[in-house]
């Protein structure tokens, strides 16, 4: 066994030295390599995750805003249409009302005219009647003053009528 150990060059001090070497290397590498690099890797991973999250958030927000705008647009379009429809309704109503009013006015005017015409006619008839009575009286006076025959009678009446220039309707 001793010979084998010697032939292979095994010796305790060097073995211990190498274990110590490795331990030192491990500790120093932990300090100079693993700790900072792992920290950096984790940090970067986190940063990237945060970035991605933020991007997602921003995208969602943008989509939300877009949707809001669309909704507002749709709403305002709807409202406009409603307003236009209302206005049209009102216009139609006004038109109808005015047409009605006009018809009513016209009817009133016609009625009034008819009444005036009636009145004028009545007055004319009354006037005519009074005038006709006077003419008749004068004609009768003339007839009475002269000898009256049938033919003369008729002539006198015609004359009286012609004299009064009456034109009945």
């Amino acid at each position, binding site marked *: 066994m001793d*010979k084998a150990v*010697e*032939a*292979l*060059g*095994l*010796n305790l*001090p*060097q*073995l*211990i*030295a*190498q*274990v110590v*070497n*490795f*331990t*030192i*290397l*491990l500790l*120093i*590498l*932990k300090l*100079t*390599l*693993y700790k*900072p*690099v*792992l920290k*950096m*890797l984790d*940090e*970067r991973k986190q*940063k990237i995750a945060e970035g991605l999250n933020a991007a997602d958030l921003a995208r969602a927000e943008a989509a939300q805003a877009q949707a809001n705008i669309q909704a507002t647009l749709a709403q305002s379009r709807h409202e406009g249409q409603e307003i236009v429809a209302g206005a049209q309704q009102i216009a139609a109503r006004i038109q109808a009302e005015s047409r009605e009013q006009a018809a009513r006015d016209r009817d009133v005017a016609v009625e009034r005219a008819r009444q005036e015409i009636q009145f004028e006619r009545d007055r004319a008839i009354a006037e005519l009647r009074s005038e006709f009575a006077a003419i008749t009286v004068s004609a009768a006076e003339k007839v009475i003053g002269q000898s009256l025959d049938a033919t003369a009678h008729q002539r006198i009446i015609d004359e009286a009528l012609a004299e009064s220039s009456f034109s009945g309707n």
Partner: protein
Amino acid sequence: MKLVYIGGIAVGVLALLGLGLFIAQGPQPEIVVPAEVLFKIGPLNITNTLFTSWVVMALLIILTFAATRSMSLLPTGLQNFVEAVVGFLVAQIEDIAGEKNGRKFFTVVATIFLFVLVSNWFGLLPFFNSIGKTADVGHEIFAELASASPARLTLKDGVYTADKKFAGAKMQKSGSIVYAKPRAKTVDFTVKAGETPGRAMDRYIVFLARNFAAFDIPEAAVEDPTAEEIRVAADALKNSSTAPELLDASQVAAGGEAAAIKSPALGTEIAGVSFENSAKMAVVIPFFRGTFSDLNNTLALGIIAFVMIEIWGFQAQGFGYLKKFFDFSNPIKAFVGILELLSEFIRIVSFTFRLFGNIFAGEVLVLMLTFLMPFLFVDIIYGLELFVGFIQAAVFALLTLVFASMATEHHGEDEHHAGHQGEEATADAHHHQGAAQAH
């Protein structure tokens, strides 16, 4: 036309291979499993593998420090790179162990992966196993033979108890930073078990005469020379001006470091060997050698993985964790428990030898190929080694992770089955108790 291209390429390849053999062929590699010692601090041998692991650690620490010194949310350059690596590791680990456990295991598993991977790939750089200091083997052999308590030989009752091979390349210089010339000859001398120091010394004299004084003697004679041959060899060494010199006691300054040794064949005391005027017999001890081509380092990693797995197991399940190993409710379970316990420890061994075997074999392969075919073929192996380096790092880390996940899992399922089969009324009750304990 096509034929011309193919021919041209073939000639180019051959020329490259020839050139490689001529100018860049390394010395025959001397494969040693234990890491070579560069210097010592107290009881600790600073081997080249330990040294390399320090360099790798420094590299990792400096690189990561530079990359994460000023982090920003928008990464640039180096930060990008380390983030990609860590991100990849975290993803893989959490994939296997789940998010909660993944973060817990992460530090250890990732460190294992990074340390092994960077070590393996760093170990493919050209200065590995090539530049180093030299160790003078020629002197060492004499010192070992002459010493009453040798450092590398085992001497008992006047004879050596084990074979020991000393090898080195013939070099012009040694003892400082040198390079082995291309195709430097490698020679080796083996001290045999059952041999007395004196006899070994005699054979060493013949060995030196044969290899350094051009003494014409068959290889076999070095193994078992006659007294006559030894005397002739000693004379040859004495007469040649470019051979190592055997020194007697009078030639060595008083208080010389090496003890003297008496040669039975020559009957004289030899107090030293001088390579001053001759080629040296030396090996290059590379400053850098792959961290995990050393069993100490892979074993250390294996032990760390094992300890961490057990700690996590206890953390997750408390002492219920031990139930997996010690369950005496029936003989089969008891036996399975023993197997589980054994496999737990065998993991250390498999961790250790898998990594060591792969990396060591890779280094040997690269070394051998630079010796056999310095150019071109090595590149293929380099590609393979890049792959192996990554795979081994991943395997070590992944296995640690998987074993850790297994250790932290609750073993309610087995008991559940037992309860359903109605083997024991208590099994069901036990299950509930276990579940309550586990949560």
